[in-house]
């Protein structure tokens, strides 16, 4: 019997991790991506391997997902991670007032923290604000966004998944009753249109999910929410440095190669193909970032960019939970053959893929269970070296 064919639209984090999971469960997988791998939100993510501390007070579901997935990713893909930890630091009295809830939240979510004196924190990270009042050590990390995706994609390829990059989905094929049975695509390297049929189409296009669902006449279950990142040309810290307070703008500084990256902001946008840089947000990153690490004022910006989070619908900006949701459009709109995964964050890519693959496998009658928690990924370079 031929393997069931699953088309995944989008080669960002969710798409590549789902390709990896489904290939291992015995599906014939084709990933379709209009650009090159990771050209949208995933490539431009901040690169913080969340411990969950950021969400431990107000969004415990996300916090628990983060600490569990953080631990798994350190095990299966150490090749792309700086596992150096993170600090939450209090600069003002109002930050200190948040500490109690933070400690309780972390304990409740199973996030190990270690309280440090200001002196101990400064010994670990000499460039943080010397006026800090308190600090907590936490298992944050940094990852290389593209290579994280490549490791999943390369391993998926090794298990037989096909990747068609520079290929844009222009429409959904239907069976005459509105059910999805494949896609119309344009090979952008040659200008050639083709049809590809599939047993199920997975919409893993993140902030662009609404463009795909609208092809089936369905509403978008996503709120695109961009934010800015500014990379400065000095690696002033070895760990992620977070402001100890309610999540807000410019309150995370992350080491990345020879740089630090300050982020981010949060606002709503509709056309997310190109988000311009707003100068006031660049200034805000400098101000807020230098409250954590004063030396940022003596560093030069090296890269400034916007990334658009694909938040699940039902609110605005930071009030929306950072967890994710998988939709079977048979259940939501009586349209079979189409599944949309949205929300979530880079740190939870494997879990998002697991839940999406569970849904796909249930629909296809495949009983194989998820094995991605335990399986180390192959070298990210395999993505380029294995022929398509």
């Amino acid at each position, binding site marked *: 019997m031929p393997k069931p064919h699953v088309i995944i639209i989008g080669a960002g984090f969710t798409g590549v991790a789902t390709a990896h999971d489904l290939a291992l469960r015995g599906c014939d997988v084709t990933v379709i991506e209009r650009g090159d791998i990771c050209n949208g939100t995933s490539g431009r993510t901040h690169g913080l391997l969340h411990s969950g501390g950021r969400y431990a007070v107000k969004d415990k579901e996300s916090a628990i997902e983060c600490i569990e997935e953080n631990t798994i990713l350190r095990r299966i893909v150490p090749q792309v991670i700086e596992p150096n930890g993170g600090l939450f630091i209090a600069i003002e009295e109002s930050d200190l007032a948040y500490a109690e809830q933070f400690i309780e939240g972390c304990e409740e979510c199973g996030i190990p923290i270690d309280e440090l004196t200001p002196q101990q924190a400064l010994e670990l990270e000499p460039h943080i604000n010397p006026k800090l009042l308190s600090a907590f050590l936490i298992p944050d990390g940094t990852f290389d966004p593209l290579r994280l995706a490549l490791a999943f994609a390369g391993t998926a390829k090794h298990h037989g998944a096909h990747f068609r990059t520079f290929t844009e989905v222009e429409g959904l094929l239907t069976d005459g009753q509105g059910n999805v049975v494949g896609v119309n695509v344009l090979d952008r*390297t040659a200008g050639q249109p083709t049809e590809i049929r599939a047993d199920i189409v997975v919409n893993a296009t993140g902030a662009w999910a609404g463009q795909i669902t609208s092809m089936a006449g369905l509403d978008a279950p996503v709120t695109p929410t961009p934010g800015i990142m500014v990379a400065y040309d000095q690696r002033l810290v070895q760990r992620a440095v977070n402001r100890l307070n309610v999540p807000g703008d410019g309150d995370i500084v992350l080491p990345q190669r020879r740089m630090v990256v300050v982020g981010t902001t949060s606002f709503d946008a509709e056309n997310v193909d190109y988000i311009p840089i707003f100068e006031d947000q660049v200034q805000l990153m400098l101000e807020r970032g230098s409250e954590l690490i004063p030396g940022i004022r003596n560093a030069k910006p090296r890269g400034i960019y916007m990334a658009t989070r694909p938040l699940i619908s039902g609110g605005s900006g930071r009030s929306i939970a950072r967890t994710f949701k998988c939709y079977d459009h048979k259940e939501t709109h009586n349209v079979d053959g189409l599944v949309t995964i949205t929300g979530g964050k880079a740190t939870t890519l494997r879990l998002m893929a697991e839940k999406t693959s569970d849904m796909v496998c249930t629909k296809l009658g495949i009983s194989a269970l998820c094995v991605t928690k335990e399986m180390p990924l192959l070298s990210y370079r395999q993505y380029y070296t294995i022929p398509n």
Partner: protein
Amino acid sequence: MTEKWNITLRVYRQKTGQAPRFDDFKMEVDPDEYVLDAVERVWAFHDRSLCFRHACHHSTCGACGMRVNGIEKLTCITLIRNVTHNGDTLKVEPLRNFPIISDLAVDMGSFYRKMEVVGARAVLPVTEAEIERPPAAWSPADALYTRLSDCLECGLCISACPIAATSLEYLGPAPLAAAQDRSLSRAPELLEIIDSEDGLWRCHSAFECTAVCPSFVEPGRRIMDLRKQTIGAKLGKLFGK
């Protein structure tokens, strides 16, 4: 952002089965934007058929290497101000010495295979990564931590190398630099790979690689050091050490 320039972005185009050409796009830009921002806007607002590679937009991933006015650049960190003038043209072309997929996008397959052959390290101890340019304030704890390697595998050095075009099998600057980073004393098995016709003796010391590297790797100097290591290792063998 206040200043506005009008420039012509001249973009190399090539589609499967068609002859290459240049397309001109007249654009209003801020000179303090990056070249990649202008390229991305061509795709977003002018010509949806444009193919190019990009991901991180801050010199971590190495995907957006192109030739800008004939010189290899990581376009996400190249300010428009530094490569053209108001009213002038800015030419972008794909990297050389790689097969073209389409337009500005090239196939990195053979390059990544060579990085794999020499076992290039992706993550290394932080003190080792910073050893040649140590930051002002070292903390003793820094020795315990790791960090991603400086080499972004962007391929700029391969494109700039005047020798890379002479042999498809030549390892080239970044893979040889990665071999030097591993060092023959720690990885003696590399000797056979690098001490060959398409290994480090093919380099003609043009140092174009070092000139274009966006990321402090200095492949040219590393290749020279690797030659010293290689001669040392071979003399050692000759005298039975």
